[in-house]
């Protein structure tokens, strides 16, 4: 129930699959890899909690190369220890993995990347008995934002997903009760979308 960072990295490397790492590595080496070290498919992991703190000076808005799908970050710099980017259909598996590892659901939220025509869904997890924070993120196309719900694994995600649906219009397939939550009952708008005008 108390996994080390290395174990988590190994498990997530397996979950994400080598293709994703290859895809991330393919489009040229980014001039300054953001945030931290990439964790290669070989499992050559950096020291736990380590990583190279480079995050700061990066003026470009981020249209550059996609960062590697699994990064061990420094808590002092980012506020979390491990950052995993998974495919939309892998979020439930990721949640199960973290559930088995004893993590607790912290929050689920979205970010609307209007320029890239994408919606990012961010799952925050914390560990109740260990100083370990984990972020799982995924992106769905903005035109049809839909991905499976993790409320079957973490019932606490139920409300977070409803809220995310309210604010971003992201549909969580398999969610038991995806009706307006914080917004009025008849709300058909999604205020946190960047193109929303009241």
């Amino acid at each position, binding site marked *: 129930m108390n996994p080390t960072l290395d174990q988590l990295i190994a498990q997530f490397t397996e979950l994400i699959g080598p293709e994703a790492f290859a895809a991330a590595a393919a489009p040229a080496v980014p001039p300054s890899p953001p945030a931290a070290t990439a964790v290669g498919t070989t499992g050559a992991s950096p020291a736990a909690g380590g990583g190279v703190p480079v995050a700061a000076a990066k003026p470009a808005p981020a249209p550059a190369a996609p960062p590697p799908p699994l990064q061990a970050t420094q808590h002092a710099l980012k*506020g979390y220890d491990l950052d995993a980017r998974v495919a939309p259909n892998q979020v439930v598996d990721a949640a199960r993995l973290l559930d088995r590892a004893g993590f607790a659901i912290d929050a689920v939220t979205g970010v609307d990347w209007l320029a890239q025509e994408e919606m990012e869904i961010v799952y925050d997890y914390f560990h109740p008995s260990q100083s370990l924070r984990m972020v799982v993120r995924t992106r769905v196309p903005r035109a049809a934002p839909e991905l499976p719900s993790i409320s079957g694994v973490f019932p606490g995600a*139920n409300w977070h997903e409803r809220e995310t649906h309210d604010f971003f219009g992201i549909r969580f397939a398999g969610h038991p009760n995806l009706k307006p939550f914080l917004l009025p009952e008849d709300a058909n708008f999604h205020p*946190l979308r960047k193109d929303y005008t009241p």
Partner: protein
Amino acid sequence: MIATRETVSAAPAAQGPQETFVLNLGPQHPAAHGVLRVLMTMEGEWIQRAEPVIGYIHRMHEKMGENRTWAKFLPNTSRIDYLSAMHYTHAFVGAVERAMKIEVPLRAEYARVITSELNRISSHMVWWGALLLDLGGFTPILYAFDDREKILDLLEGLCGARLTYCYYRFGGLYNDVDDEFLRGTRDFVQHLRPRLKMYRDLVTDNVILRKRLTNIGPIDAEMCRRYGATGPVIRGAGVPYDVRRMEPYSVYPRLDFKVPMYPECDSMARYLVRMDEMEQSLRIIEQALDQIPTGPFLAPKVPRVLRLPAGDYSYAVEAARGRFMVRIVSDGKEIPYRVRLRAPSFSNLSLYEEASRGMILPDALAMMGSLDLVIPDIDR
């Protein structure tokens, strides 16, 4: 309508022998502490299903964050959970400082700890009084407010506000902690110790209170984990989870304090956790008062208009109700791209539906009181 043979026999028999009704508790209900509405499907006084309906004072702070500068959003954070404003501003300020890599002077960090812990005590006092009101004891809240008033006076002297403090700034504080405040805080600590003992004698050891809270509303560690419940709720379930220890921030690592923890999982455990936390907060304040150094209270050269480096950053603090996390996403401009506020009451309430199943109404309300909900915190 008079119940004749016809009307009785015409009543729907398909519903089976049990008769349930829906009790619409709130949004204006004395136990709802604001505008929480709970749709309760009841069988007599037994709750079959209690579904919280929230959003009545939803203010969309997260959207507000996206159309004003970092500094202008700061006052908003103290209005989310108005009872622990210090912690919330601390989280936001901390997130921005983390992104900008601002080194906060030590004096400011100690002042933050002192004011945060004072705020925690004042928040717990409101909870204590309100819980007793829920249980039908009217007097304790006035005793608690009597003492809380002294905290508010102290904090008012620092930043001018009595409730929605906006005392922290990026890189330090709004102004320096003066000797008057430090002396007043020291006096307050001396004053509160015997008062806490009186609270215990008067209320905590009361047999009716014990009966109303012991073995009521079990919330175990597993449920807390699955729902993300934190703060006194998870500590009342036997898990010593405290952000001050798990993700140390500010100068908490330098201070010696215990994380109160009770394994009973019931409402009384959550009650005792909070009562012990007040004592621990006093300990923290005393140590911080002894250790606070002289020096600047604001980091030098913090730009007036902040442009955070692109990326996302999060910062969590232990607020009075549990883990409060701010996740900010910056695209390098002077206004945030996204501000995510993870409120502890939101997660703590989300387990209510599961936890209250099969409870009797007064017990369910006692349990709700022991969760210490602040509705603006849930709705944001």
